[in-house]
């Protein structure tokens, strides 16, 4: 089961992830770059599992489903950088029109200049107030400038068109409770049913129904945390037909019922399913 996580509204989010931190299977429109400073983590990107050791780097392209698990035994520290495509305009073309055949980069593959830039970025993450977005962009340009030309890129079958993607997901969120159908969506955007069955998967890596369900559960998550509505109201608001189907799907995705989640969240605001 997949979630759609929006880590942040800013176009850049940078932090250090410590041992024990995990993210269940999720996807987002931002690009994720992770660099292991110590210990090791396990990354599952697009159904292939990688163990990432110290000094190795991983790059997750927009909407690729991925899961991140930090090992508990060792002292693990990971630099995570999440940024919008338009944060690095030079590479917008590459991110929207190509994908990379590899997701992780071995220590030996990285140039000396890249390692230095990464250590600068780590410093920026430790003391976020002392550095501006512009200098972070500078170092990031150095890192990406190296990574992108290490391997031959694969052309995407469908290019990412962010304004279109954004408007389509916005439409889906807004019309969630009306129980809209595929036909509504097709006529609102002038797209064909073929788009929903075939092109959709090229862009989002998952099929339309899975994506819609993830979007619904995401909205439910938000409502569970911010309101004290009854579960039934939340279920209807998110477009589920009844409480049972909402609870069943929620439990399948998060491992616990909506009610349990709400209680846990009240006790510990940092809790992540």
């Amino acid at each position, binding site marked *: 089961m997949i979630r759609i996580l929006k880590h942040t509204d800013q176009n850049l989010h940078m932090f250090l992830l410590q041992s024990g931190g995990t993210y269940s299977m999720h996807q987002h429109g931002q690009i994720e770059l992770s660099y292991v400073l110590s210990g090791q983590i396990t990354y599952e990107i697009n159904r292939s599992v990688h163990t990432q050791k110290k000094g190795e780097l991983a790059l997750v392209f927009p909407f690729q489903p991925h899961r991140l698990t930090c090992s508990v035994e060792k002292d693990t520290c990971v630099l995570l950088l999440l940024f919008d495509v338009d944060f690095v305009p030079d590479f917008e073309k590459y991110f929207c029109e190509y994908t990379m055949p590899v997701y992780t980069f071995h220590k030996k593959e990285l140039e000396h200049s890249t390692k230095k830039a990464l250590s600068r970025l780590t410093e920026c993450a430790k003391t976020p107030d002392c550095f501006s977005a*512009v200098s972070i962009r500078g*170092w990031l340009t150095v890192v990406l400038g190296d990574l992108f*030309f290490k391997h031959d890129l694969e052309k995407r079958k469908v290019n990412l068109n962010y304004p279109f993607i954004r408007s389509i997901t916005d439409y889906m969120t807004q019309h969630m409770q009306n129980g809209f159908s595929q036909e509504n969506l097709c006529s609102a955007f002038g797209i064909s049913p073929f788009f929903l069955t075939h092109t959709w998967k090229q862009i989002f890596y998952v099929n339309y129904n899975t994506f819609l369900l993830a979007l619904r559960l995401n909205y439910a998550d938000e409502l569970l945390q911010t309101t004290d509505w009854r579960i039934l109201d939340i279920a209807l608001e998110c477009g589920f037909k009844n409480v049972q189907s909402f609870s069943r799907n929620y439990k399948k995705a998060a491992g616990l019922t909506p009610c349990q989640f709400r209680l846990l969240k009240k006790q510990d605001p940092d809790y992540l399913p």
Partner: protein
Amino acid sequence: MKEKPAYHFQKAPYLGFVAENNNCHLHLHRQAELSYIARGEHMFYIDQECYHLKKGDLILVFPNQLHKPETKNYCKEITCVFDAALISDFTYQLTEFHLDQCTFRREELAPSTLEAIGELARTGISKSYKQHAIPFLEKGYLTVILEDLFQKRKLIPFDPVSPSYIISRFFNFIETHLDGDLSIAAIAGSLHMSPSRLSACITEYTGKTPHALVISRRLDRARPLLYKTDLSISEIARMTGFSSERSFYRNFKEMYQKSPIEFRNKKRAQRRNL
């Protein structure tokens, strides 16, 4: 200054080199220039003023500022010359402003800046530039350096009557209107100056008349069209803003001592042999 300045045409968006005992005549160019003194001492003249630089100092020359590097004893410097448009985060600052003081002492520079300069020196003219249109690594380092430098100094808008500002506006205008009307009256009108003052200013600082500069930019643009496309000569002449095929032919021959067709055939023969 009695010395006559020279205008340096440079096409590459980025050029980096390490020079020893750099002495150059008085010149100006479209690009900005960043110079770091790695060893020794250096004299630098910018716009009538003289700066004495010691080891570890850094100087930033804005686009179209007159400058002249001079070495007395020994000096090793790292210099990068780059387009303002390359550093997209600072294009506006570089073209519309200058700094209240353009030299920086070693103590002032942040550690990240020093590291970026070191990396720039190490890459030299790097691989990335040869492979791709944009030199990404250099762009990244320069962004980091300029971010630090601009924070430390105050930005002052360019004096609208200063020659460097007039020259930069002149080149911006001809770059964007190459295929249109570029008579001296039209250019002067768009810059809100009298034709004679503009002409005098350009000739004094670049050593060439505005007309000659326009022609050479047009021919620069025509050259790749000649060997990369199959367009007819009259079409290329029209696209690059020449009023007739004949004037294109005449100017081309004057500049390269070859007719356009000869140039095209020769270039193609060279490619075939490769």
